[in-house]
């Protein structure tokens, strides 16, 4: 009798311990974020001051917006390497339209779209690159890695061609042409909050809602989790994938506009290797590269961990070479922990079944 009671109490305590271990594991990225904040808060003077935090958040915003789009693509078990180039080309499109306009040689006139139109056209170009990615992958059966590697080069080349490699500077517009106001994206504020941070909040909120609460979002998860089963359930797999790449293209184009606006200049090499930062943020946030697993909130936290880490290390005076080493180690550690969590989860499920 007494030994019986003993074993049950033992079983009870261990079953209580398991969820705690699992809980810690599932919040590991969030815990990592708190750790980096505390670490830099202690080691770096003024790190937790509001102005510093605002600067960090502005830096994070661009990468986070890219990573949000990337998350949709990775959830479908794809990858989008072209986002960095889309950042470049969307800025160059805006720069061209603001400084050169659209020359209509036939009529001997040049049309200058206003800033809203300019932004819309740039976003459209980015979304179109995403559409091309999607069509290549679904209609022509090109592997996502290859298709977007191709468009990475094509879009970068196109960005360089628009100006022959030159930078469009001083993108403030001309009151006579009615195209002023572009710098607002990068340096404007809404109720005292920098516009790019507001934009990030809006992007994140909409994306989180779409992923979790709409049929499209559910279909994205289903396609990434098991494409065949999704197709058999009537999910239009190709359409879902194309939309995912278009979302990614749109997010990248927006990020490109924010960067061009912050600098008040469009540089054709802008956004190089940004795709890797975006993938890193998504993976750090728990998105599985094999598809079907991940959340927008996770990606957001992942982007903040990377952003806080790199800004904090700069303020600490760590050399940029060491920064790269540290960033790489953090990414690998994140994935290793992710695998450990999966194994833990599976083992607990097995044990629970055995009783």
């Amino acid at each position, binding site marked *: 009798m007494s030994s019986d009671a003993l074993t049950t109490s033992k079983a009870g305590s261990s079953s209580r311990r398991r969820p705690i271990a699992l809980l810690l594991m599932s919040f590991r990225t969030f815990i990592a974020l708190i750790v980096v904040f505390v670490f830099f808060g202690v080691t770096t003077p003024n790190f937790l001051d509001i102005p510093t935090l605002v600067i960090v958040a502005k830096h994070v915003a661009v990468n986070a917006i890219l990573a949000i789009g990337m998350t949709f693509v990775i959830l479908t078990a794809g990858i989008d390497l072209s986002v960095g180039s889309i950042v470049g080309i969307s800025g160059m499109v805006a720069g061209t339209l603001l400084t050169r306009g659209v020359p209509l040689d036939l009529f001997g006139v040049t049309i200058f779209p206003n800033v809203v139109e300019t932004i819309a056209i740039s976003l459209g170009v980015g979304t179109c690159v995403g559409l091309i990615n999607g069509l290549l992958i679904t209609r022509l059966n090109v592997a996502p890695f290859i298709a977007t590697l191709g468009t990475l080069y094509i879009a970068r080349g196109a960005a360089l061609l628009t100006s022959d490699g030159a930078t469009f500077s001083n993108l403030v517009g001309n009151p006579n042409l009615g195209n002023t106001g572009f710098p607002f994206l990068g340096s404007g504020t809404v109720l005292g909050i920098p516009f790019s941070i507001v934009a990030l909040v809006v992007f994140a909120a909409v994306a989180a809602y779409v992923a979790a*609460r*709409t*049929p*499209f979002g*559910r*279909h994205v*998860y*289903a396609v*990434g*989790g*098991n494409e*065949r*089963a*999704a*197709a*058999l*359930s*009537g*999910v*239009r797999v190709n359409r879902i994938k194309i939309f995912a790449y278009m979302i990614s293209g749109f997010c990248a184009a927006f990020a490109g506009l924010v960067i061009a606006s912050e600098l008040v200049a469009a540089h054709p090499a802008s956004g190089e290797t940004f795709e890797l930062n975006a993938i890193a943020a998504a993976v750090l946030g728990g998105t*599985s590269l094999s*598809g*079907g*697993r991940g959340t927008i909130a996770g990606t957001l936290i992942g982007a903040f961990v990377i952003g806080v880490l790199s800004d904090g290390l700069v303020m600490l005076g760590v050399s940029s070479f060491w920064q790269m080493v540290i960033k790489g180690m953090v990414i690998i550690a994140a994935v290793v922990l992710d695998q450990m969590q999966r194994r833990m989860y*599976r083992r607990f*499920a*097995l044990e629970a*079944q*055995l009783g």
Partner: protein
Amino acid sequence: MTTSASPAHDVILRAEGVGKVFPGTIALQDVDFEVRRGAVNVLVGENGAGKSTLMKILAGATAPSTGRLVLRGAPVVFQSVRDAARQGIGIIYQELNLCPNLSVAENLSLIDPPTRFGFDIDGHRQVEKARALLARLEHPIDPNRLVDDLRVGQQQIVEIAKALAADVDVLIMDEPTSALSAAEVEILFKVIKDLKAHGVAIIYISHRLEEIMRLGDYITVLRDGRRQADALVKDISVDWIIERMVGSTGLVSQGKAGDLGANALTVVNVSLPRAAGGFLVDHVSFSVRTGEIVCLYGLLGAGRSELFECLMGLQPQALGRIEVGGKDITRLSVAARISQGLVLVPEDRQRDGLVQTLSVRANLTLASLRRFTRLFSLNGTKERSEARDMIRRMTIKVSSPEVEVTALSGGNQQKVVIGKSLMTDPSVILLDEPSRGVDVGAKAEIFKVMRQLSEAGLAVIFSTSDLKEALGYADRIIVMSRGKVAADYRRDEASEATLVEASTAAFPAQERLVS
């Protein structure tokens, strides 16, 4: 039920209290199994009885969760298939494991090719070695031919030769005859006799009971992951095997369906051309009425799954006409067919049925999300409550709808897939081998649900290769053989004998080996 051990054959390999647990299911429990030298040790059991798992453990492909293996009197732990092979255990899987891009000779010396100076592959000796092996099997296939260019039967011969290439003491054969023609089967039997004479222990797994009676020396019956019985083959009959395999929980025939309604599904001349010529589905026509349960009976490869895929719109090359409720759906997409009331529960639920990363709830509602959508937004409350209703209706054993679907047992996963199809409000439901890999209790529940559905006015079509299921649960049985409809019986016209005969009707002599 213990074997009267024959002194002629000593035990070379023994499994003692072996068990295997997978997430969601217990595949094998406390099984003892003796493998005797110079004899054919037969392993039988229904689908999902644990044969494949036991075989994989013996071959080192997977480690047992409990119990141990004893080889030549000493306990062993196999690290891998290669490790087991080094210790003299060979295996021929049911699915072929050859590299189609390599030649026969290269496949036969894949692991350990003959070399000059230890690294330069000696192509000449490799070919000679292959030629010798194939000659031993009386099958002079040109060793330089690509495996891809061989017929399936010939590939099977190569597979056997590959197992013989390593000197084996124990050879495991998992349904080696399922892809062979009659002539090839004879050759295989001769090879087996030859191996026996050389003292090799054969573990033979098959569904074909006549073969077992002809070939076997010892027989072990598995049921639901446990050892049910074992005996000497000469002491027993086919009936004895069936009784042990199926047990007293035999399927009880269900009551006759109510009145049949109008035609729910009409299939006219549906064909699926095969890439290599001929047809996988060969001009199939039939119709099913509302309230009717029709069984599509046939052997492996009869074209049942392919027919279902044609009906569901998964085969773009399919020909013919398909009507649901009098409406032509031949040109429609999968999604449109679902909204017309047709739905498929696929054979392979892991590959085609479930999204493993999603919860039970999300899997259940995946095909019917439109029902829960207002404007752009999913109505979470409604989704959850309907998912809960379906869990209750299908008696899915799960603690919460939010549990990941992979945590469920095979039978409960199958119920989730069926539940998902029911949530689309179908008028015709196709179930491809619904009882595959499902335990006996869940099997009975699944067939009970099918009867309820037919009583509610659905047309139910299920496929099976199990005679008892065909005779026990269907109102009508359509027999398929080699892609054709071989027979169409009402239940009272059909018997085991007529079904077996019809299902092999298309086989005779036409399929002799051409090498």
